């Protein structure tokens, strides 16, 4: 099969898959929604570390410099799906929800020796909430209930390239185009039924650069340093509003019909990240990442919430048994921890999160690998009448290594 056709098919099909995605967290109300935190390869099992990792057979979206290390005459592609089961609770209610999503579809291939390239499509953020609010009616003792439903999210198409400048040093650039829509629908009933739908379209480019440096490289010991820099980006927004009311007798009256207006740009912050990966011996590799997002420097109007600088700490350890005779000896065993301060501050409460993960890298053949991970984590807090989400997440990433330059005789 022509691989170009496969790519085109994927690009055509994937956005429609994304559009069915749904999450159920009230926190997706804020900003652009909840970020897709699933990493490629086995990185989720390693606590989402990856700034200083450059496994030649895996695609690493965290640092594009890793592409300089890609194997020659190969073609990597990978799909990821995940399932989340979560419990949402406040101080007095709790509810369970589950959610399946596609996390990414990406490819990478070498261009020349020491230059690699990657592109792909993945959900960037997701919005899914459904909130009932009781409101008083001014001039009356009555109340009415409005149901506010959020859906949608942004997608990311990226093109990245990495180059190994000399044996120890790699640079990478990642240009991403973010696009999509976030919808908010309000339904209320009082004498008449009212529906107000705002569709907020956002789009914009984001540029990330990365560097990796092999401090030590010997047969059984490697120390790699990595850093990333993501430039602040502005996403332009347009809003399309539709609203109508329906009387008791069923007559529908359009109030707003495709009213277009400009939205204020959404600003994405400057992001800096550093990482250290140490291969202690042939069996054990550990990684530490620290990432800081400078939300304080963005200047956007907020309501009850505020955006604060965000710190992410990540740790991962991977174990590969040395006995080469059994299948389970080829399996990579992973463990990870991640703490994220979050950028949201609601009611003077930081919405932070953490998770612990374990993972397996299962070789299916010498051409494909299945990376499984399970993470358990928590986001938010029940104090200050906020919401706490406890989640169990399983990710499943399938990666293939193809031979790009070996033409088949018959097709």
């Amino acid at each position, binding site marked *: 099969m022509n691989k170009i056709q496969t790519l085109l098919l994927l690009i055509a099909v994937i956005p429609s898959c994304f559009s069915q995605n749904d999450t159920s967290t009230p926190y997706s109300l804020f900003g652009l929604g909840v970020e897709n935190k699933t990493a490629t390869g086995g990185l989720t099992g390693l606590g989402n570390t990856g700034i200083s990792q450059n496994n030649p057979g895996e695609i690493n979206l965290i640092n594009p410099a890793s592409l300089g290390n890609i194997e020659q005459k190969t073609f990597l592609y990978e799909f990821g799906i995940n399932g989340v089961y979560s419990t949402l609770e406040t101080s007095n209610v709790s509810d369970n929800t589950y959610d399946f999503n596609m996390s990414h579809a990406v490819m990478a291939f070498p261009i020349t020796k020491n230059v690699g390239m990657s592109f792909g499509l993945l959900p960037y953020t997701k919005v899914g909430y459904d909130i009932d609010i009781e409101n008083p009616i001014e001039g009356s003792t009555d109340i009415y209930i409005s149901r506010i439903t959020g859906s949608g999210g942004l997608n990311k198409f990226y093109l990245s390239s990495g180059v190994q400048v000399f044996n120890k040093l790699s640079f990478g650039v990642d240009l991403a185009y973010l696009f999509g829509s976030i919808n908010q629908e309000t339904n209320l009933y009082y004498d008449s039924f009212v529906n107000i739908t705002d569709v907020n379209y956002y789009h914009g480019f984001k540029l990330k650069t990365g560097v990796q440096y092999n401090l030590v490289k010997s047969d059984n010991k490697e120390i790699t340093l990595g850093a990333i820099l993501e430039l602040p980006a502005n996403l332009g927004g347009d809003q399309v509003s539709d609203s109508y009311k329906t009387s008791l007798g069923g*007559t529908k009256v359009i109030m707003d019909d495709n009213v277009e207006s400009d939205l204020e740009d959404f600003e994405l912050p400057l992001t800096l990240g550093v990482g250290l990966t140490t291969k202690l011996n042939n069996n054990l590799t550990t990684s530490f990442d620290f990432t800081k997002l400078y939300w304080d420097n963005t200047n956007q109007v907020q309501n009850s919430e505020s955006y604060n600088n965000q710190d992410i700490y990540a740790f991962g350890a991977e174990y590969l048994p040395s006995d080469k005779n059994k299948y389970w000896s080829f399996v990579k065993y992973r463990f990870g921890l991640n703490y994220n301060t979050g950028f949201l501050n609601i009611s003077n409460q930081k919405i932070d999160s953490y998770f612990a993960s374990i993972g397996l890298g299962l070789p299916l053949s010498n051409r494909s690998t299945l990376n499984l991970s399970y993470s358990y984590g928590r986001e938010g807090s029940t104090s200050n009448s906020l919401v706490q989400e406890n989640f169990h997440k399983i990710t499943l990433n399938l990666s293939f290594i193809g031979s790009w330059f070996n033409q088949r005789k018959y097709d």
Partner: protein
Amino acid sequence: MRLFLISSLSLLFMFSCSEEVNNYPVGTDFIDNDINIVIVDTFSVKAFTFKIDSLVTSSTSRMLLGNLKDEYFGDLNAQTYFQVNNSNFSISSDAVYDSIGLVLNYDTYYYGDTLQPQTYKVHRVLEYFEPEEDVDFYNTSKLKYDEEALGEVTFTPRPNSATDSIYISLNTVIGEEIFNKIRDNEINNTDDFIRYFYGLTVIPDATTNSHVLGFNFKSYSDLNENSSMRIFYTEDNGDSSEDNDQVLDFFIPDASKQFNAISTNLDNTIISSLSGTEVNISSEDTDQLIFAQAGTGISARIEMPTIKDLKALSQESTSLNAELTFKPLKGSYDATKPLKESLVVYVVDSKNRIVSQLTDLDSNASYAVLNQDNSEFDENTYYSIDMSGFVELILNSEFDLDYAIMIQFEDYDTVVDTLIIDNRDEDNDNIKLSVTYLNY
């Protein structure tokens, strides 16, 4: 590999959906909700009384007869005109004339004190039975009639029985003249007859305060439950065992050949200036009362000039509901003058021209609907009108519409009922408009 790709893609399709999003009470505190609903009932309401110049009163199929005297509405006199005719003009030459009379058959409508006696006088119309212009007669229309009455009756009505009727003996000379002309073949067909006998008018005595009654009629010969002029005669058919009495029935040939002239004298009432040139009388000049009377065209007009100010509140807003309430003046209604269950409401322009009947958002006619309180103090008897269509009309118009509403009786061309609307602020009895309004 290809198979694998395709199957994994299909798998993704299936996977990429989640359970129906649950609805959480959580999150209410941090949603930014700029939607609010306000009930506004502080609209300025201006109330007026005006009088429609003339109402079409022909083709109503009801004769209205009677006289009323009222503190607020002055004197009302309902007089009726009608043509009579027959289709049978054959009387044998040996028939013998007996008498002539007018039968008026109750249709059960009445207004006023039916215990009072009343006198009706019947006069012969002296001009051809046709309107001055067009095809309709109005409540103000007149036809010349003979000052000398053909007959009269004084009676106390029993209007609740549709099988009952009033009989008025008419001048026997005119009866005999008609009889002879037909018998002697001077009148052979309907045209001959209506050129000779134009019609009748019945005039109630204008000096009493009594009642107005409704009478029905059929456009064909029928001696039962019908109002008609009848000539009684005997015909000897040679068989003494049979009844020889005969009746020649002069019925009203068409509903358009009958109309009611309803005159009103407003002298010494608070709305006396309606007879003059003034178009709208403000409730401020009429003790904070406004009036409606069917038959005479006296109508209530209610202006709500500040509805359009809602538009200034917010660009993104809409009305969800609107209701106008008003109370009938206590003491102005009782068992003999009951309140109607519903009243008709029209949208009128600044010159009281009817734009349309008031409708709700679903384009159904919107009426003033009675909410009756049967308690001793009668504190809660009021009418309410769904004004949502009106508010929508005003708010959505590109023009600055000076529309108001007019309140009348549904069958205002066939009744003489009255309504007094209280617009006094004390006891919160005034006319109120309440609009439920959404800002978003």
